[in-house]
C-alpha cells in the first residue's frame, strides 16, 4: 500500500508563515480530509505536495519517492494527480481532447513519428481516444465527448477535470474543493464516485469547505488553521473537538 507522508512541512512567503510544521499521512484506498477556514494554507499545502511550490522545510515522501525537491512535473510521474480549486480545463478543446491530455505519460511514440505522422502515432491517438471513451462511459458522459469543455455546466466540468486527473493513473488523487458551487444532487453523485475510486485503491486527499460532505465521506480528517494542524482524527472526534468548533465550525456541528 502506498502512502503519502508529510513530515514537518513548512512554507514561508517572504516572512509570512503560510504553512508551519505540518505532518500528515494519506494512505492508499482511504479518503483523507483536509479542512480549515479560508486562508488556512490548504491550497498552499496541495501546491507543495504536487511540487508546484517549493518547500521551505520538512520532507514529503510518496512511499520511497522523495518529492521534497522535485520539479513541478515530477509529481505526476510519481503518481500524484490533482484537480484545481478554480476548475482548469482547456476551454476551447473538446471534452475528449481534455481527457486525452491526461494520458501524456502513456504516450510512447517517438517525436520523429509524431513529426512525420507515422503509423505508431496514428495508432497511439486511436488507442488513447478509446481509453478516454472508457473513462467517459464510467462517468456517464459519453454524449458530451465532442462538446467544447468550456461550455459544460459546472458539475460536468468538475467531472471532466477528475477524469483527466485519473487518466494519469494516480496512486494519490487530491481534490481541491470539488463540490464548491455544486447542488446537493451533484455533490452526492460526486461523493459516490470518490468512494468508488478509494475502494479501487486510490488514496484520496479531499480539501473541502462543505462540512457535511467531508463528514460523510472521510475516513480521517486533518484540521488546518493559520498554517498549523490544530486537530486530527475520525469525523466524530474532529467535530467534537472544542478547538475545531471554535476555529472553524463556529458552534454548528452539522
Amino acid at each position: 500500500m502506498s502512502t503519502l507522508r508529510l513530515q514537518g512541512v513548512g512554507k514561508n512567503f517572504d516572512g509570512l508563515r503560510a504553512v508551519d510544521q505540518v505532518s500528515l499521512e494519506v494512505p492508499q484506498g482511504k479518503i483523507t480530509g483536509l479542512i480549515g477556514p479560508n486562508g488556512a494554507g490548504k491550497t498552499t499545502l496541495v501546491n507543495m505536495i504536487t511540487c508546484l511550490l517549493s518547500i521551505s522545510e520538512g520532507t514529503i515522501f510518496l512511499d520511497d519517492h522523495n518529492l521534497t525537491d522535485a520539479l513541478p512535473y515530477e509529481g505526476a510521474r510519481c503518481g500524484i494527480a490533482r484537480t484545481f480549486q478554480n476548475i482548469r480545463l482547456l476551454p476551447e478543446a473538446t471534452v475528449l481532447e481534455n481527457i486525452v491530455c491526461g494520458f501524456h505519460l502513456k504516450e510512447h511514440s517517438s517525436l520523429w513519428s509524431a513529426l512525420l505522422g507515422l503509423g505508431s502515432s496514428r495508432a497511439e491517438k486511436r488507442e488513447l481516444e478509446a481509453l478516454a471513451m472508457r473513462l467517459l462511459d464510467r462517468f456517464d458522459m459519453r454524449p458530451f465527448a465532442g462538446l467544447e469543455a468550456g461550455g459544460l455546466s459546472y458539475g460536468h466540468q468538475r467531472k471532466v477535470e477528475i477524469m483527466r486527473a485519473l487518466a494519469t493513473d494516480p496512486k494519490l488523487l487530491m481534490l481541491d474543493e470539488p463540490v464548491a458551487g455544486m447542488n446537493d444532487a451533484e455533490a452526492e453523485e460526486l461523493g459516490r464516485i470518490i468512494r468508488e475510486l478509494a475502494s479501487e485503491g486510490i488514496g484520496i486527499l479531499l480539501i473541502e469547505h462543505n462540512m457535511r460532505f467531508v463528514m460523510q465521506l472521510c475516513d480521517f480528517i486533518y484540521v488546518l488553521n493559520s498554517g498549523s494542524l490544530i486537530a486530527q482524527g475520525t469525523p466524530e472526534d474532529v467535530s467534537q473537538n472544542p478547538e475545531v468548533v471554535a476555529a472553524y465550525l463556529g458552534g454548528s456541528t452539522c
Partner: protein
Amino acid sequence: MMQFFLTYQPVLDHGLLSLGFAFSQWVVLRAGVFSVASAGLAAIGGYSAALLHLDGGLPPFVTILLGAVLGGLFGVALAWPLARLRGVYQAIASLAFVQIVLSLNLYAEGITRGALGVDGIPKLVETPLLLLLSAGLIYLMHSVNTYRLGRTFETVRQDEAVANSLGISTIHFQTIAFAIGGVIAGLYGGLTAFHSYHLDPAQFGFEFLVAALSFVILGGRRSVVGPVIGTAVLVILPELSREFGEFRQLGYGVILMIVIVFMPQGIADTYLSWSRKKRLASQQEAQ
C-alpha cells in the same frame, strides 16, 4: 496562362519563402512561447548557407542543410534562457537576440562582409523546389498538430500549471518547439540566400520579424491553414492594391487592424471555431 504565371512567379516565390518563416513563427507560438527569434535564426541559416558555399567551398545544397542544422542548434541554445521567461519578457529577450545577430551581420565585416551584404550567390532555388518543400512543410506541421506534440503544445500554451500536474515538462516541450522552429527558419534562410543572389544585413530585421508575426496572427495561431491563409493574404494584397501607390501601406495597416479587432483568433481559426460550433449545435438539435 503561362504569361500569367511568369508575371506572378516572383510573387509566388516570395509567398512560398514567407510561408516557411510563418511556420517557423507559428510552431513556437503553438507551444506558448512568445518568441520573435525566427528572424535571427533565419539570418543565421541564410548567412551560413551563403558563406559556407562562397568562402568555404562546400556544395550549395549541403550548406543549405547546414544552415538548417545551425538554425536548430541556435534555437535549442536560445530555449535554455527563453523557456524560463514568460510572455513579454520572452519577446524582449528574443528581440535582443535578433539585434545581436543583425549587428554581427553588419559589423563582423571580416566574416559577413558588413554593410554591403553578401553578393554573387548563385540562384539555385526555383519555384518547383519551393512548392515541393512547402507541401512537405505543411504535411509535417499537420502531423505536429494532430499527434502528441500538438496536444502537448496546446496544454502548455493554455495552462502551464495543468500541464505540470499531468507530468508535462514545459521546458522540454518548449525546447522541442524552438528546435523545430529553428530548423525551419535556418532552412528557409538558406533557401532565400540561394534564391535572390544577394543577402542584405538588414534583410532579416524588424520588418521581417513583424511580417512573420503578422502572417500567423492574421491567419490563425492554432490551425495549420492559419499561416497559409495569413501568408497568402499578406503577400497577395499588396500586389492587388498596386495602383493605390503610396496608400498601399495604409490599406495594409487598416486591414490588419480590422481583422484583429473582429477576428482576434485570426481568419482561419475564427472560421474553424465558428463552423465547429455550428456543427455541434446542429448535432445537439438532432438529439
